[in-house]
């Protein structure tokens, strides 16, 4: 199995207006350049002056420049770049405000020794998805095209509603979240025949509108990890009907007083 993470704009039209409004990223970029320019000016002025005052100005300028270059906000409580603390983002405002202009896109791919129809049907039955995504508690089918996905979350309830966009039998499935959710995203599953009668190539693409670090904080895995794990499990479920595991198997080192050292 191989995967790659592609950062960029999504390919599909955005029913829930992913691309609307000015993203925080643009403001961040402008402010960052301003801070870097200010830092440079302060540093140059400081170096031209003598004594402690000049030295302090030079130091301050260097600090401002460095902070801006690293993406920190020297005078604010929030990051200019990616969110260092997703929980903090959650406390400040609705999801739409933190959508970045460029969605984070992850793709994983795997070859499954099976026909496309079997794979497609397994995924199309969205109630199966918790078997593939251990981050999910359950998926409730609401209608032919809508479902509610409930995540396993340690703290507050985490769920989202998904709508199917395209259902191209045995070839393509696309879906996206609708309504307010902490994890707005869209995704696709593409199936194509593998050369040499090797089965079916399966591509899962996830496009989150929040930074990967925030997805990881909420789901316990990055989008890349989520996509790879889902395909690994899909392959095993379809090919073997089970998931390989070493859980619940015996091991030593924990058996206390029974332990019998021989060397």
């Amino acid at each position: 199995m191989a995967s790659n993470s592609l950062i960029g704009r999504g390919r599909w039209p955005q029913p829930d207006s992913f691309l609307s409004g000015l993203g925080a990223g643009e403001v961040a970029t402008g402010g960052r350049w301003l801070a870097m320019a200010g830092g440079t000016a302060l540093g140059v002025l400081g170096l031209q002056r003598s004594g402690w005052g000049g030295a302090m100005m030079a130091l301050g300028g260097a600090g401002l420049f460095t902070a801006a270059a690293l993406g920190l906000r020297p005078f604010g409580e929030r990051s200019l770049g990616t969110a260092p603390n997703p929980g903090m983002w959650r406390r400040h405002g609705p999801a739409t405000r933190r959508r970045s202009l460029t969605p984070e896109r992850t793709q994983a791919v795997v070859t499954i020794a099976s026909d496309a129809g079997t794979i497609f049907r397994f995924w199309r039955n969205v109630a199966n998805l918790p078997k593939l995504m251990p981050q999910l508690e359950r998926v409730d089918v609401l209608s032919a095209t809508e479902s509610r996905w409930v995540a396993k979350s340690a703290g507050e309830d985490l769920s989202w509603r998904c709508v199917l966009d395209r259902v191209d039998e045995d070839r393509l499935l696309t879906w996206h979240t609708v309504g307010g959710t902490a994890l707005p995203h869209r995704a696709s599953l593409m199936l194509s025949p593998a050369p040499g009668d090797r089965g079916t190539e399966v591509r899962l693409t996830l496009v989150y509108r929040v930074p990967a670090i925030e997805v990881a904080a909420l789901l316990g895995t990055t989008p890349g990890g989520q996509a790879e794990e889902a395909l690994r499990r899909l392959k095993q479920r379809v090919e073997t009907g089970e998931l390989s595991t070493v859980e619940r198997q015996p091991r030593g080192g924990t058996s206390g007083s029974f332990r019998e050292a021989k060397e």
Partner: protein
Amino acid sequence: MKALCWNGTNDLRVERVPDPVLVNPHDVIVKVVLSSVCGSDLHLIDGYVPTMRPGDIIGHEFLGEIVEKGPEVRYLNRGDRVITVSVIGCGQCGHCQHGESSLCDNSNPNPDYARSAYGHCGAGIFGYSHAFGGYAGSHAEYIRVPYADFNAVRVPEGVSDEKALFVSDAAPTGYMAADMAGIKPGDVVAVWGCGGVGQMAMRSAALLGAERVIGIDRFPDRLRAAQMKAGAETLDYSRVDIFDALQAMTGGRGPDVCIDAVGMEADGASNAVEDLYDRARQAVGLQTDRPVVLRQMIESCRKGGTLSIVGVYGGLVDKFPMGAAMNKGLTFRMGQQNGQRYAGRLFEHIRHGDLDPSYLMTHRLPLDDGPQAYRMFKEKTDHCLRVVFAPQG
């Protein structure tokens, strides 16, 4: 139950651990009757395989009786006497379906280690570190066998436990080494390493049509066994220059096929400077494996010949003579064993009397003697070729 557990480099302990349970529908539980040590275990014990964890049960070559089976097991039953192939296949992925079960896509539940180190992940192996799945090993009274219909093979009537045991690993590994080398009638085959796998490779090479088979080692009892049991001519690398000797024996051509049944901990006693160099680089982590045998094989093999590698390597080697390999037009074949593909053929050879691996078992001991047994096996004392544990007593 009782089990032999790895607790650190050169630290094996017999411990009480919980009995295994059925986890997946295609599992069986096997009561272990015989479980052999293997040269590749020494890489774990010596600390060269980095993903071992204290408490891991080792052992991967075994024979036993099925005592429990999952609901989806179709072809096996309680009471069946089986060997289990040490490298686990799922039986369904593309590799398993094409006889390459050691490359199984599905049987390793911890694929990240191997994927980060190797790019892709191979099969799980019983008792062989978490990079290979973290499966509990067979030096125990019971073991869980996943995908049992594919990995556990019923022993035919009339084949004794002692003869059947090594169809679990040593025999198919040796047979595969000879098979993938594409031996043709008239070929001269040189095998580095006269341990269990090496001797099985020698016998298999003869079965596949090799005209002459040459075994290379330095332990007199092993060289003698290679001569007497495997029908090989032998070379003692501590006494002769291997390159010169092989050229002299092959009319200056070199062997048509060179088989590596040694792997990453090759002993370089024939060249002290080279050995010191490799050991020093291995000790400071600049290479993980000592490629003495590989270098000798590349140098010695005839132009256009084939190298077949079943000795286990784990990571990086240094001073690999790629120029010689390329300009001599050598073919490299290698891999962990695909025993599921060979078990039936090997049992047929055993039934017909063409193959009898039982002589590899020089010692049969209780599991309690595990740590001492491995020390004897490692130091090759008491003419030890293989120690086999009998966990049921």
